[in-house]
């Protein structure tokens, strides 16, 4: 599958597994897990620099922006204004003009405020951002995001950090069939089979954080996810057999006694 590259807004990606950098024990573990996952896109959050503890190391001392595509997010933003402000700050901090856009609607579910999301995406696309929106598993909203200029759409599999897996495979499948840009399933994956399932459905990539960082052994789970995404992609391209209610023998009747 060497030539099976993911291309978004003219940029080519090697890995179809994208990972977050939150919730790890320390930066050393973050780095090791990311290396093991084989991911070449890593998400980061934008926050105030700690000005009282200046000795604090920076994440980007461990994750080399020359080696990885750093994807800043607008995590924690509940309004269009905040999401736009954080996106601009991320760009000003100088790693890229790509942003994973989140406009959240509710603290308990962290479901996206899709109306706000479309509005923020529109503003940022006009400012030249490459906007990758974290959205609901709603095909109509996904299309609207494409219409305002998003070069990929990132629907959730389940609530962020829930580990519930692919809750609505049929909606995701409809999104994948209807929407003509890459679809990255983002959030909700719990274990390797969830990631494989997303890829088998036809996702172009899967983005996860907690499923790896929150595992008992994050390094081993990172490796599991790498193979799951790879296997799922291969299976999708190979084309699965149709489901049948009754058995169909694999061995011929001919030649039997």
């Amino acid at each position, binding site marked *: 599958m060497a030539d099976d590259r993911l291309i978004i807004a003219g940029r080519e990606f090697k890995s179809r597994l994208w990972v977050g950098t939150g919730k790890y024990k320390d930066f050393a573990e973050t780095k090791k897990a990311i290396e093991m996952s084989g991911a070449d896109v890593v998400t980061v959050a934008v926050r105030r620099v700690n000005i009282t503890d200046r000795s604090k190391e920076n994440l980007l001392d461990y994750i080399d922006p020359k080696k990885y595509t750093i994807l800043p*997010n607008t995590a924690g933003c509940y309004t269009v204004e905040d999401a736009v402000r954080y996106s601009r700050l991320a760009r000003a901090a100088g790693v890229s003009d790509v942003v994973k856009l989140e406009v959240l609607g509710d603290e308990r579910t962290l479901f996206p405020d899709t109306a706000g999301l479309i509005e923020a995406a529109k503003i940022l696309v006009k400012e030249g951002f490459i906007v990758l929106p974290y959205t609901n598993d709603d095909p109509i909203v996904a299309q609207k995001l494409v219409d305002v200029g998003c070069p990929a759409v990132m629907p959730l599999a389940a609530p962020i950090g829930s580990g519930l897996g692919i809750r609505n495979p049929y909606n995701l499948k409809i999104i994948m069939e209807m929407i003509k840009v890459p679809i990255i399933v983002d959030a909700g994956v719990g274990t390797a089979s969830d990631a494989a399932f997303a890829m088998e459905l036809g996702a172009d990539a899967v983005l996860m954080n907690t499923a790896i960082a929150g595992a008992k052994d994050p390094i081993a789970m990172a490796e599991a996810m790498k193979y799951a995404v790879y296997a799922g992609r291969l299976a999708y391209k190979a084309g699965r057999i149709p489901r049948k209610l009754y058995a169909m023998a694999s061995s011929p009747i001919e030649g039997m006694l």
Partner: protein
Amino acid sequence: MQDTIQIHVNGQAQTCDCDATVADLLQDLEIRTERVAVELNLEILDRAMFDQRLLKDGDRVEIMSFIGGGSF
């Protein structure tokens, strides 16, 4: 004229020399200028302006960088 000014940096009170620039402030705080974004009174500054923008009394400065995060 006073020698120092009071500003707010990332929500905390901070005293600066009255002729200090944004670059001076970052240097004082031992913050490397690469990979940080600076917002001065809600205006995001171009990196090239750091050593030209003078701080004045009452300014609100936000210095932002990247930390580990997936989704919120």
